């Protein structure tokens, strides 16, 4: 890509992923989401009806 010298040299991918995980853990400690069913397949209409039920 041209003109990419305006990109900062931030943390590497592993460090970035660790930062994200830490941000989530700070809000939801490990295990605190255990009772929540993952919304893996997004069907907005169906999941909406389920959420409203």
């Amino acid at each position, binding site marked *: 890509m041209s003109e990419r010298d305006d990109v900062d040299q931030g943390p590497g991918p592993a460090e970035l*992923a660790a930062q*994200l*995980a830490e941000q989530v853990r700070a809000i939801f400690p490990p295990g605190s989401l255990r009772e929540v069913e993952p919304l893996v397949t997004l069907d907005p209409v169906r999941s909406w009806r389920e959420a409203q039920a």
Partner: protein
Amino acid sequence: MSGLVELGLAEAAGLLERREASAVDLVEAQLANADRWEPAIRSLAHRADDSALAAARAADAELAAGARRGPLHGIPVTIKDLVDVAGLPMEAGSRVLAGNVAARDAHAVERLREAGAIVLGKARTHEFAFGGFTPPARNPWDVERIPGGSSGGSGAGVAAGIGYASLCSDTAGSVRSPASFNGCVGLKPTYGRIGRSGVVPMGWTADTLGVIARSALDVALVLDAIAGPDPRDETSIPTPHAPSAPSLEDGVAGLRIGLVESFFAAAQADVEAAQRRAIGLLADAGATVVEVELEPRAAIDATLPAVFQLGAAEAAAWHADWLDARRDLYGEDVHRYIDMGRHVSAVEYLDAQRIRRLVSQAFAAAFREVDLLVTPSHTHVAPRVDEQMVVYDRGEPMHRDPAGIRCLCHVNMPGLPALSVPVGLARGLPVGLHVIGPPLAETLVLRAARAVEARAGFLGTRPTEPA
């Protein structure tokens, strides 16, 4: 700009219908306009001058024979360079796909062509749609500023009068962010409302095609042409789309609109003031505006990192065989973000999907109380190209990538329809208001956008052409 490129899509369509201009006139005016603007804003990844003129001549021949296909007949548009257009390069803004030429049209492009639209060129995308500033494209309101992303070329080009609309994509705000920064209307419809076959995925559990144009009506006309089932996309919604354009003037009187006040927690004061004026216009138009909060707040707060986890993990899976083999062909920032997905554990990915469930429930609860929600699109103006951090008058500074989607990414978790509508200027730069609806409520969010733009006084405001 010449007169023809100052028009909106609907106005240009009216000229064609009345035979006061031809499709060739429109395409020639747009190409001449691109000649003037492109050295400064570089919104196009690929131009299609010859095929656009040929298509315009064919469109004019059909019009002369009395066979008008509809409001898009003879209208030049651009297509984000993430979407296949037969015979044109599809490089996703990346050297990884340099030289790739699409063999067939994406489903949405097929629909556009069937409606008579003309492909003017491919609009620049941030590489593989994974970023918020779309280099080397620039913002036509100030070419020292970013146009947003990842559909930055679409937003900058439409604002400058290169294409009356642009087909683009949104996984965490990529239609609405450039629409906001460039003073356009940008709609991300319900997940699955527009077929995605022929589109390079980014985060496939949230990827949605959308439209950027200069008005709510222009967006509605394009949406009505392309929305509906896609037999090549298992995630497309099987029911037909009920046209939005005929209902656009129905207004917002009697609607309850919820303002999510917490999204203003960090803000530049002049941006916030313009948005609050616009929210007042909704009340002037007869809506009842009430404050709401999305609960549980923890899920809303966790959305930003969760969106990055989901998008990066899904992108890493799609890019798996290239991340090492073609390492040097990626931009440094994009490779870092996608490679990050290989460091997101399965447990973290599933927890992000649990957060998605909570966010979906939070919106569902809010929509038991109100018909629509409004938030700021951004609480800052488009950053300068060299400005990595966004500084607010209230709240902590934030890197421009998360700041660009901070108010926009939540709706991608449950796949809700949402748009950004311009409401005015702050320091000479456009400001957008974000309108969110429940699933399949595209018409309702467009009605609200129309009510705002009819009163805000921004419609028809254009950036100044470079000297």
